């Protein structure tokens, strides 16, 4: 039982000259939610596809639930569930028809299928709309249906690729409650996301950037080992201040949050408050407070270390920094333009 459900070593995938995933090591323990946090195009979907046996790795080894991939991909398929990033059930079938289809595709008998479907309809609050066509449902309803379909054969391991990208916050919270129910029932889950609040709920987390794993650990561990202080700065002209701070090599990033500036200072500075006061900043800050690090701070400190010199993630906490096209065309990338240019420069080097 203590054997990891996913064990990947040196996992690499190249599309032509582009390396979408580069030498990724990954260990996922049973009965945990493992999160993949990263911007669009960082290789999350490619990794998930390699772990489900949909893509053949260019290099590296993968063992999922004891099955070696890609060799045993077909054996694995009965034991995993996969919720794709884009809704992939049939829009022109009703909720019940979709579930029945998936149940029979997984070889469930009529009796078991009926029983599972009625369980799932009530678990995911789909009972009242079981006769509605999937194409006419809201984002949250479709996502619950997709999760129901992905779990209909009671898989041991569940892959969720950006499951909540089209869902409002309240539905997102409900959705995560359901995920923890599945963990309690003995399943393990690998979820990719670009939402910080979702990443924070994971037992363990990998931060991905342009095909590399930048950090790996529980959210608390990551925050503790961040290697930077968080200082919230108040001042009359934040934009001018931000530019001056960004120019300092000790400052990793400065991002505006309403009337404050959230500044990450490298932890080689022992007393960041006094150090900041000592910098002759114009206008002088009116308030300086140490703050608790957030996952977003972890993300900023662990990604783009060499390229990024003061740019930051914009609120709301979406990590759409990198607009590089992932070869699988899931490019809804809404990357911040200045970051994009810088990153593309970086890839060419």
């Amino acid at each position, binding site marked *: 039982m203590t054997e990891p459900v996913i064990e990947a070593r040196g996992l690499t995938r190249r599309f032509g000259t582009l390396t979408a995933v580069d030498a990724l090591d990954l260990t996922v323990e049973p009965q945990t939610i493992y999160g993949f946090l990263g911007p669009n195009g960082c290789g999350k979907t490619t990794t998930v596809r390699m772990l489900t046996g949909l893509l*053949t790795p260019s290099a590296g080894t993968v063992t999922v639930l004891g099955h070696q991939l890609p060799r045993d991909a077909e054996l694995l398929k009965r034991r995993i569930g996969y919720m794709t990033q884009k809704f992939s059930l049939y*829009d022109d079938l009703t909720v019940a*028809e979709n579930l029945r289809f998936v149940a029979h*595709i997984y070889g469930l008998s009529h009796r078991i299928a009926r029983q599972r479907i009625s369980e799932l309809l009530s678990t995911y609050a789909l009972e009242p709309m079981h006769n509605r066509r999937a194409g006419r449902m809201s984002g949250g309803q479709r996502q619950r249906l997709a999760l129901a379909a992905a779990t209909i054969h009671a898989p041991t391991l569940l892959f969720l690729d950006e499951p909540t990208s089209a869902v409002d916050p309240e539905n997102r919270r409900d959705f995560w409650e359901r995920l923890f129910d599945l963990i309690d029932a003995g399943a393990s889950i690998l979820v990719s996301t670009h939402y910080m609040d979702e990443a924070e709920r994971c037992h363990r987390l990998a931060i991905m950037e342009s095909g590399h794993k930048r950090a790996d650990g529980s959210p608390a561990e990551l925050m503790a080992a961040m290697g930077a202080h968080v200082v919230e700065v108040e001042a009359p002209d934040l934009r001018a201040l931000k530019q001056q701070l960004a120019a300092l090599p000790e400052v990793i990033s400065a991002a505006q949050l309403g009337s404050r500036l959230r500044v990450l200072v490298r932890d080689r500075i022992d007393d960041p408050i006094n150090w900041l006061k000592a910098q002759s900043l114009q206008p002088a800050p009116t308030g300086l407070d140490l703050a608790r690090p957030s996952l977003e701070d972890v993300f900023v400190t662990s990604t783009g270390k060499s390229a990024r010199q003061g740019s930051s993630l914009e609120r709301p906490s979406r990590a759409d920094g990198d607009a590089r096209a992932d070869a699988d065309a899931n490019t809804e990338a809404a990357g911040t333009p200045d970051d994009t240019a810088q990153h593309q420069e970086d890839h060419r080097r």
Partner: protein
Amino acid sequence: MNGMLQSARRILAILSKELTQLRRDRTTLGMVIMIPLIQLLLFGYAINTNVRHIPVALVDQANSGLSRVLTQTVEATQVVTFTERYVDISAAQAAIVEGRVRAALIIPPDLSQRVARSASVGAGLQTPPSTDEQTSRPVAQWIVDGSDTMIAGAIKSLRAMPLTELLRRPANRSTPTFAVALFFNPEQRTAINIVPGLVAVILTMTMVMFTSAAIVRESERGNMEMLINTPVRPLELMLGKIAPYILIGLVQTTIILLLGHLIFDVPLHGSLLALAVATLAFIGASLALGLVLSTIASNQLQATQMTVFILLPSILLSGFMFPYEGMPIPAQYIAEVLPATHFMRAIRAVMLRDASLDQVAEDTLWLLGFMLLGLLLASLRFKKRLD
């Protein structure tokens, strides 16, 4: 055993999913009925290889009672209708160039002498040498727009038209070289040959079109990534995909043959069993062909283009429009590859010539082989991977 059961369950799941989707797609469902209906009526009435009432011009330089009798005799054959009259040959030629008429009949001023000589030869009063220019001259001349070989052929058939009316003699009792007995279609109605052929053409169109889109549609609508993550096997997917269309193919065949019988009086001489077996084999072959196309095409537009690529030779080379035997050998080889050619032969044999199942076994087996090969190829080409 359990594996077989699960396999059957998966095929059934895909089949019933396809049927449900089809039931909700009113436009496609309408086309299933309307395509054979409209095409049968259209082609059944429209296609006629017996050319009649060709518009032609008349240049009557004799302008006598005899010439008028001659033109009436010609018109009585129903091959041509005199729509224009000219005094001048060049005017008639201009009318041909302009396309107002397809040919012109020129009656020379010395018609009566020519007829008299012709009559004496025909009546056997004299036996002049055939080299004699005076006696072997025809009574009048046709100038024809020979670019359309069918039209030209029809007018050429008038060459040896008997002139009994002109000569006021009892019907020509001359013995033809051959006696011809027309079996199976003694009245020479084109519809008899066209309607069974239409089954082949319409089934090629609808069957290949439906299945060529079948796999591509799953990818285009984004369902494929879910599907290939399930334990479904490629062959199960293929079988589940084509099964509902077998039913549709049979419905279409029934519509065409029933209406063909009611409206165009097309007979079914052979057995229903032979017809059903040959038709099922052809439906299977067409569906398998569509599946292969579907694994090649990357979107539905490409699938449609490939369908047309198959459909055109299936109409033009299969023997539907033109006799297979008239084509050059390389074209015959190409035609042999098309399922429509084999089915065209089989269905015409069964329906019109009362051929038994074993008399069309060769074509039927070929179609079954084609289907199996197509299914195998499509299943092998279908990869449950994204790379």
